[in-house]
């Protein structure tokens, strides 16, 4: 195991050394390239948020407690869900020109206080739902990257979808993590090198030894706990986990494309939700393959980079290197 890791590290060092050959990425894009990837700017798109109180029951959506434009409810989870949904809407609208999850202005329906002691948050195909956690394993689910993750599942669904099992399912999970993390980085105005690249930071219970649910920077290191065990995420194809658990490891192998995105964004530097986020978003819109494998997706991101930043751009070259570093050759 140790030897294998060592070997892997060696390989990474070699590949990183190779990276430097192509020079630092230039942020000074040509005007034409800038036009192609221009942000939509302050869009006129506005969210229609509908936050419900599940009253600790199973029924969804529960009781409507805050509609768009309403003042604060004083219920912490509800107000956080409202604000966070606004930030996620703004990422997709103002950066990528998307009008809500379905790109047709659909209401953002969310339920807080879903069930009692419920240790999860989910997108059920129509709405978001957030448990409160049991206070032991999880203390909350109202955290910006978690909300971004769940809403991104909605965007993925309305962008042609990715079958929620095996590699396509891990891509679904990874893309949700990417946009969850980007929502948080944008909210905090952090550049790629300043961000922690954690998903669900601080949501684990007080006695759990861990920082977050997942780490895109260092998959497999988010937690290590007697109760929870060890974060099982790999970051390289050599450690791809074959399992029937977790729909074929959708939350496990997502570490690989997560890390590729992290590498790409940090190679480029700057705001990850801008060029890298736009490339990922554009790739998702043009994928048209619900059963896509990791290499199908990698291919699509390269195509998207070529389209947005120009054929053979340093961005496209960097992206290819990032995929290669996680063991996906394109």
């Amino acid at each position, binding site marked *: 195991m140790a030897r294998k890791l060592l070997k892997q590290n060696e390989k990474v060092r070699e590949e990183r050394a190779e990276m430097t050959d192509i020079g630092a990425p230039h942020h000074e894009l040509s005007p034409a390239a800038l036009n192609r990837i221009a942000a939509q700017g302050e869009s006129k798109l506005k969210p229609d948020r509908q936050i419900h109180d599940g009253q600790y029951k*199973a029924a969804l959506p529960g009781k409507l407690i805050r509609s768009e434009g309403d003042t604060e409810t004083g219920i912490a989870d509800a107000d956080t869900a409202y604000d966070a949904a606004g930030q996620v809407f703004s990422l997709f609208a103002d950066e990528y020109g998307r009008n809500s999850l379905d790109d047709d202005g659909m209401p953002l329906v969310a339920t807080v206080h879903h069930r009692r002691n419920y240790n*999860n*948050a*989910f997108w059920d195909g129509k709405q978001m739902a957030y448990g409160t956690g049991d206070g032991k*394993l999880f203390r909350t689910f109202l955290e910006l990257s978690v909300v971004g993750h769940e809403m991104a599942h909605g965007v993925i669904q309305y962008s042609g979808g990715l079958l*929620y099992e095996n590699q396509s399912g891990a891509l679904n999970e990874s893309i949700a993590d990417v946009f969850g993390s980007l929502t948080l980085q944008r909210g905090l105005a952090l550049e790629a090198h300043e961000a922690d690249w954690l998903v669900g930071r601080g949501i684990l219970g007080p006695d759990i030894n861990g920082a977050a*649910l997942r780490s895109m920077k260092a998959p497999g290191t988010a937690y290590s706990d007697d109760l929870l*065990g060890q974060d099982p995420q790999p970051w390289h194809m050599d450690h791809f986990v074959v399992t*029937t658990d977790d729909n074929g490891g959708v939350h496990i192998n997502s570490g690989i494309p997560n890390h590729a995105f992290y590498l790409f964004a940090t190679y480029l530097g700057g705001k990850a939700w801008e060029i890298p986020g736009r490339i990922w978003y554009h790739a998702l819109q043009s994928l048209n393959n619900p059963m896509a494998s990791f290499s199908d997706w990698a291919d699509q991101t390269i195509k998207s980079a070529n389209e947005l930043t120009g054929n053979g751009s340093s961005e496209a070259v960097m992206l290819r290197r990032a995929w290669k570093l996680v063991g996906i050759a394109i």
Partner: protein
Amino acid sequence: MCFSLNCSHHNPLNCIVPPYMLRVLELRGDEPWRIWRASY
């Protein structure tokens, strides 16, 4: 429903917490229906 120990595939839901992180609760006897068997 969210996660079910007995049916690990064809899950219509996208949960943020994977089943392997929650399984410990069932092993410990903490009312697993609260965690997995959310039917609505």
